[in-house]
């Protein structure tokens, strides 16, 4: 059980963090302005648009969801959970139970006050098979969600999980009213009320005057719609027909920069492209071959030339350098042809050739593959690039061919990423690298809340993947968006484009 003192402690801690964040924000930006109508164009245009958080599966849903609903927590620029509908949260000793203390005085758009029953319903409905939730895989670990006193909920887990606050801040876990089954409209607690919703066309939402954050939101109205064509999207922004757009293509960055009224908005994030070398089949099951390839990648050049500088050099594992658990003791790999030749010889594969499968479905993998091909030739390995069609790549090539390109979008937490891709029994373990010790470390990391221990566990995870894994990971690829220079208050969040699609209550328009 948690007592009030513990709650207060965590409150103070989060309060200080918020204050620190707020002051740095004030330095960087001017005083927010009230009013105005924001027109946003996303890069996805889909007739599957929905108002049901359990069916949120695309970026249009994420952006719409953040206008209309809130989650218990909000993911910040460092990927950490911050209080939102929960004003504090804390785990028990062995991290098998989390208690969230709900904020008081929050009301839904129809005037009903938020209470624990709404939260319990919103989370537990994902477990109901009838709901057919898109987030069901994330709640398998949850045993029970129950009321804790008058203003709290207690989340009981099957196994220790330190990531619960972050998971409950993700898109699927937005809070709806207890008993809601009809999602033809949206009654949330969010900064905007639904005014118009046409699937595949647009969402219009107007300011919620009773929003629980004082003074927010700043805008009177938001209109969100999809423009699937990247050229049309940028043209509309430059012509002033929209104020904000997601997904600016790397080849259009220069054009966007030339326009005087447009700003490029880039979000460093743990999205990475890798060349997967499968450890269960010839010839990539040879560790020396894998080490040879890892020493052939010209990472600096890939970031500068292929990504136009909109990326971060990676070190053959999934943790970004700015992460608190980044293993700084592992030497950064670069092009080392002597080492590459040494390992190739040791593998008995010098002067041989191998096929590398690349595709448009993995952005930039063709260009990265060409750079790798050139370095490999110098080390005495012939790489034949096989350019595969996008359609069917994930079913025909991925986790099938020994040497192929893969892109991984960021997951809310590092341990979720590790669980999805590096556990021996993971469905998406695309290198088929299996190590019981690594499995243990990943489970331990998920259940550890102590920062020191967590860091040590993640350091070990990174060094195993770095030394033995089947992943040649050259770079992390930024999200790139663009907006009119009138738009202010947008801050990067590594879980997605446009501030993790959570911009509705923080942006404003400068006249």
């Amino acid at each position, binding site marked *: 059980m948690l007592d009030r003192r513990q709650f207060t402690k965590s409150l103070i801690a989060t309060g200080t963090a918020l204050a620190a964040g707020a002051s740095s924000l004030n330095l960087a930006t001017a005083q927010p302005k009230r009013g105005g109508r924001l027109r946003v164009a996303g890069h996805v245009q889909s007739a599957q648009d929905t108002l049901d958080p359990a069916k949120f599966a*695309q970026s249009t849903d994420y952006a719409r969801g953040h206008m209309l609903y809130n989650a218990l927590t909000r993911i910040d620029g460092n990927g950490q959970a911050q209080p939102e509908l929960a004003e504090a949260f804390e785990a028990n000793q062995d991290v098998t139970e989390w208690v969230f203390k709900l904020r008081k005085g929050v009301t839904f758009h129809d005037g009903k006050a938020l209470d624990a029953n709404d939260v319990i319903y919103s989370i537990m409905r994902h477990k109901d098979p009838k709901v057919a939730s*898109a987030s069901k*895989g*994330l709640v398998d670990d949850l045993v029970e969600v129950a009321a804790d006193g008058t203003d709290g909920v207690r989340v009981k887990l099957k196994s220790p999980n330190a990531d619960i606050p972050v998971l409950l801040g993700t898109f699927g876990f937005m809070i709806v009213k207890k008993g809601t089954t009809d999602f033809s409209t949206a009654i949330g607690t969010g900064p905007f009320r639904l005014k118009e919703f046409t699937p595949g066309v647009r969402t219009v939402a107007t300011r919620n005057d009773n929003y629980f954050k004082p003074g927010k939101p700043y805008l009177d109205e938001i209109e969100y719609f999809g*423009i699937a064509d990247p*050229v049309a999207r940028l*043209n509309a922004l*430059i*012509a002033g027909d929209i104020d904000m757009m997601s997904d600016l293509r790397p080849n259009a960055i220069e054009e966007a920069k030339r326009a005087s009224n447009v700003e490029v908005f880039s979000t460093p994030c743990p999205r990475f492209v890798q060349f997967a070398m499968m450890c269960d089949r010839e010839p990539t099951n040879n560790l020396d071959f894998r080490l040879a390839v890892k020493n052939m990648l010209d990472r600096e050049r890939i970031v500068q030339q292929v990504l136009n500088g909109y990326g971060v050099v990676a070190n053959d594992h999934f943790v970004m350098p700015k992460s608190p658990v980044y293993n700084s003791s592992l030497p950064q790999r670069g092009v080392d042809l002597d080492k590459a030749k040494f390992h190739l010889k040791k593998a008995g594969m010098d002067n041989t050739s191998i096929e590398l499968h690349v595709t448009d479905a993995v952005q930039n993998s063709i260009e990265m593959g060409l750079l790798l091909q050139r370095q490999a030739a110098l080390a005495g390995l012939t790489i034949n690039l096989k350019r595969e069609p996008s359609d069917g790549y994930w079913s025909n090539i991925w986790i099938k061919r020994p040497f192929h390109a893969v892109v991984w979008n960021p997951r809310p937490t590092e341990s979720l990423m590790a669980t999805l891709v590096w556990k021996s029994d993971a469905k998406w373990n695309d290198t088929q690298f299996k190590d019981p010790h690594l499995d243990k470390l990943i489970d331990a990391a998920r259940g550890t809340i102590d920062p020191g221990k967590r860091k040590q566990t993640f350091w070990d995870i990174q060094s195993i993947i770095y030394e033995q894994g089947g992943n040649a990971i050259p770079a992390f690829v930024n999200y790139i968006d663009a907006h009119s220079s009138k738009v202010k208050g947008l801050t990067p969040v590594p879980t997605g484009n446009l501030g993790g699609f959570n911009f509705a209550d923080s942006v404003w328009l400068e006249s």
Partner: protein
Amino acid sequence: MLNLIGRRALQGLLTLLLVSFLVFAGTELLPGDVAQAVLGQHATPESLQELRVQLGLDRPAALRYVSWLAGVIHLDFGVSLASQVPVRTLVMDRLGHTLILAGLSAAVAVPIAFVIGLGAATRPAGVFDRISSIAALCVSALPEFFLGTLLVLIFAVNLRWLPAIAYVTEFRSFGQMVTSLAMPVATLAAVIISQMARMIRATVVNVLSLPYVEMAVLKGVSYRRIILVHALRNAVGPIANVVALNLAYLVSGIVVVETVFVYPGLARLLVDAVSSRDFPVIQACVLIFCAVYIALMLLADIAAIIGNPRLRHQE
């Protein structure tokens, strides 16, 4: 004449039935289904299975087709599987947009095409004929997305005269409708004018070489009268056909223009529906396109018969 219309309407219905079956079979052959499209990456097998049961996708394909067909006979087009909105609402909204764009484009394009085509035909190999032929060839060789994007770059991005996207849900005023639709209409009109004008010119030139025109010339009939009364009437059959084909294209084939100008029309809805495997929406769109083709072709034939009395007494 009534006999003909009745027979053609019956043939049309049969065609629609056949098309709906082919579309259904095609949708079944596509990999993946609407449950996968809706639930996305995190989907668990249980969620997928449950959604399939809810949407009735667990029933045999033949049964699903028959029950859909039974609904259509009662004018019930069902509910979109992906968004749970009635297909009728989705489609009627988009159909309205499509008809506005197609109607305006046709109203602009058809008269211009006649003027250019007939003008060129009056003096084959003359200056106007050469210029218009070269221009028409150039325009019809340009893909629509290039023409559309070029217009946007000039008039929206550089000159700032017109909005870059024609995206609308309702038109608030006539002026707003004209500025929003100016570029998409210009793009579409350019494409179909070039085709129609060339066809009109070719047909009329052909007719002008016939002996009865020579007779009229010798008789001293004015050139204008020869073209407008004698020649055009005999050329009406082929011209009506090419005009009808182009109008059908305006309704169903303009997905590229809808994409470039972000115009929420019916063709775009069809493409979206295919990518989410939303069978009732796909069917509704295809049936509308097919019905438009059949109706326009019928109108073209009727026009040909009116223009050429000999056709009335065939068979």
